């Protein structure tokens, strides 16, 4: 145990000395150990395919080879030994990706001991990482998989202005968090607007108002810029120093909080900001320009429909619910057409859950939003709507090159639905991650049971 600790420390130090920019943003002392589970080569035949990029194909086949998508189209032929699955009457889609989850950090059972999602001790906790709070045995991961979730971003909560780092996971059962970490995925920084931080800290030293929120963001970014410059100066000096010089440049002290923020300034860490109101999102866009970073995604974005043009202009996604809102003032202007209106304006619309219940039915959220949009006169296809569930979140999370669409060469993260996934009667029949079958509705051997649920009432029942 002791030697491993020392080893990690030395590794971290070595990295930070050897690179030009603060590499701690992109590298991590807690690397992914994820390995795709064993898979066979599979040919799904004669299904309705939504490719996740806006395309729909009837009577189409999909071939999986070595855990990757190797072909999509009509009448494919498969090499010998390929497992053939008849998908007649069934639908094939990319796995669903939830960009806003607290699975593992607010696990079931939701007992006091399990509150690991918010470091409610200071409004600025950019130094904490959600992966250090994730309990991999949360039964919610398995339930989410039965709803077709193949990847997810687990974020810290929204109590703080800077909540900490979020981590992208492959939704696979594992004994360790590292075994779930999506290889190569960038980290996220969770930030929060509006009511939550000022409610939590209003009587604990502030911020106590939206003004205080903004001064808190700005003061912290000013520190981050200075920290970045200090390290740059040091590295420059290090580059110029000769071995024979008597006085060698000394490294600045490390600051975990600042390391995450510099990761954002350098473009390695993606800002995911909880923000409801349109006017507030507009202010945050200016804030990001003031300090030279980008907000990748606004989360909840209840009023995104009011500024869909602004979001499009700035290339910022909006992750939204289909029809939840109303519970606080900043959620008061919730409308059911938010998602389709952002999409229709040419923006990046994402369906998110923020819920261990909602994550099991994100496709149903998309279906409701699509129906509401159509009823209001917006002409959007089911195939386009699937982008809200797979390619848009994948791009926003920085894993779009690996997953999120049925493109040749991408990870075979796939759901076979027993019918049209926009129907209430349809369920996921099979869920594959990197080509490996991890859920089969009709075969209990492929229905994962978490350690927590083993031997409990209902063990062995379908959930």
């Amino acid at each position, binding site marked *: 145990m002791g030697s491993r600790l020392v080893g990690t420390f030395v590794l971290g130090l070595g990295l930070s000395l050897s690179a030009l920019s603060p590499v701690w943003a992109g590298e991590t002392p807690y690397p992914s150990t994820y390995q795709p589970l064993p898979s066979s080569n599979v040919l799904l035949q004669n299904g309705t395919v939504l490719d996740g990029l806006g395309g729909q194909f009837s009577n189409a086949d999909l071939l999986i080879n070595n855990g990757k998508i190797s072909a999509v189209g009509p009448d494919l032929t498969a090499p010998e030994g390929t497992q053939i699955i008849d998908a007649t009457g069934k639908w094939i889609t990319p796995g669903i990706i939830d960009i806003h989850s607290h699975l593992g950090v607010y696990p079931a059972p939701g*007992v006091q001991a399990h509150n690991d999602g918010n470091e409610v001790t200071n409004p600025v906790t950019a130094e904490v990482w959600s992966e250090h709070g994730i309990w991999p045995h949360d039964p919610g991961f398995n339930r989410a998989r039965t709803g077709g979730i193949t990847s997810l971003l687990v974020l810290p909560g929204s109590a703080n202005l800077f909540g900490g780092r979020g981590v992208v996971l492959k939704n696979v059962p594992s004994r360790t968090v590292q075994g779930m970490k999506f290889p190569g995925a960038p980290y996220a920084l969770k930030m929060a607007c509006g009511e939550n931080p000022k409610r939590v800290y209003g009587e604990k030293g502030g911020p106590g108002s939206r003004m205080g929120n903004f001064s808190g963001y700005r003061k912290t970014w000013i520190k981050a810029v200075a920290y970045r410059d200090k390290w740059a100066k040091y590295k420059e000096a290090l580059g110029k120093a000769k071995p024979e010089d008597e006085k060698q440049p000394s490294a600045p002290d490390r600051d975990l909080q600042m390391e995450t923020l510099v990761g954002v300034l350098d473009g390695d860490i993606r800002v995911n900001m909880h923000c409801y109101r349109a006017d507030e999102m507009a202010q945050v866009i200016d804030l990001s320009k003031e300090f030279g970073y980008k907000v990748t995604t606004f989360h909840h974005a209840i009023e995104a429909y009011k500024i869909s043009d602004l979001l499009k202009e700035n290339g910022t996604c909006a992750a939204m619910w289909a029809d*939840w809102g*109303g*519970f606080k*003032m900043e959620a008061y202007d919730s409308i059911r057409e938010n998602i389709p209106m952002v999409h229709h304006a040419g923006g990046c619309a994402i369906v998110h859950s923020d819920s261990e219940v909602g994550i099991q039915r994100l496709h149903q959220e998309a279906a409701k939003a699509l*129906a509401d949009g159509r009823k209001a006169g917006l002409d959007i296809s089911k195939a386009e709507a699937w982008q809200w569930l797979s390619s848009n979140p994948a791009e926003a999370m920085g894993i779009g090159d690996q997953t999120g669409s049925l493109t040749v060469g991408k990870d075979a993260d796939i759901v076979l639905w027993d019918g049209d996934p926009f*129907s209430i009667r349809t369920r996921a029949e099979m869920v594959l991650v990197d080509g490996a079958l991890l859920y089969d509705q009709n075969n209990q051997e492929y229905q994962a049971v978490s350690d927590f649920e083993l031997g409990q009432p209902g063990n062995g029942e379908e959930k």
Partner: protein
Amino acid sequence: MIRFLTILTVFILSPMAVLAADFAITGGKVITNHNGEIIENGTVVIKGDQIIEVGTASSVTIPAGFETIDVKGKWVTPGLFIPFSRVGMVEVALEKTTNDTRAKESPFSVALQAIDSFNPKSENVAITRLEGVTRMAILPDASHTIFGGRGALVDTSGSFAGERAAPAFVFIEMGEAGAGIAGGSRSASWTWLRQAVAEARAWRRGREPAEPLLLAADALALQQALRDDLPFLVHVERASDLMNLIHFKEEIGDINVIAIGATEGWMVAEHLEKAEISVILDPHDNLPQGFENLGATMYNAKKLHDAGVTIAMADLHDEAFNARLAPQHAGNTLATGLDWSTAFAAISSVPAQMFGVDGDFGQLVAGMEADLVIWDGDPLELMSAPDMVYISGEKQDMQSRQTQLRDRYMDKGADQTLPHAYR
């Protein structure tokens, strides 16, 4: 019976009923909700606030002077009846001034009445109506005692009824939450409940308890509830708590008990059936959210139904803003084995039956209140929505603040020069 008459009077006296016209809905797929009967190309005839005839197009003669509304290709159903909600009792949950769902500082418990907190003009009422809900049970939440108070049955028309709706049931919080409220254990909460009932009965016999647990107003309210045979709506999740509830019912005798929550109901389904305890559940409850829900499964509804237990369904976790999502919650039982008619009845006729108003609501048959919804497809489907809603024969406005916000910000082309506030 008294309660039933009062409710009926309310609707007869309400101004909308007077305004309702005589008309017939023709050509639609009519879900009568009566013995599972579905009439393709059905006709529903409405006179005033009542349905006077339902049948096939060829069997029904529309009286002269009745307007005919053709809804070919649409579904016609009874209005939805939500068995558990706080719609109209809260505007913005986190803003205390707008939230009348619970009363932690009040000295009263059973005496509290949901109807006093109900605002027909609440935005939540309108958005609920737009999704096909015409009737709801509303109830106060429990906070400082296990009794939340007394619930009422209301409509979603947004109009002011002539009379105040009478108490329709008593809400009681047991299980984990109730144990916490009552002093820290289930032993405490069940003792509290038994003692409360004993006191109410003592008052009824004219004997004031020496050291009463309940205030006089609460004891009187409980006594009246027992006298009027109002259902006890009890929140319990764990199978052992449901067994406690069964024993409580046996002890008290002659009392109508509805279990709400009941995630582990399937584990004691036969006992519930035998004890004639009906259940209001949320099909989406399939996670062990607490140690009282370890056995949670999507198959709860199916298993309870198969055992003969009467089930109603609702969104039990967002009961104000999203009470309107009942069709999705009920619809999800279709993929776990429940038949369509049972799932639909669980959000329409069964709640009416649970609260003893099935003579008036929940079915499209002659003599019933004219609460109807015209849908553009299967009401349990995700992509269906109501086109028209009628409450007591009156056509409802299909706008809400939400739809107006939508219309204001919907792209209307380049000719808009003034700010959105002028649109």
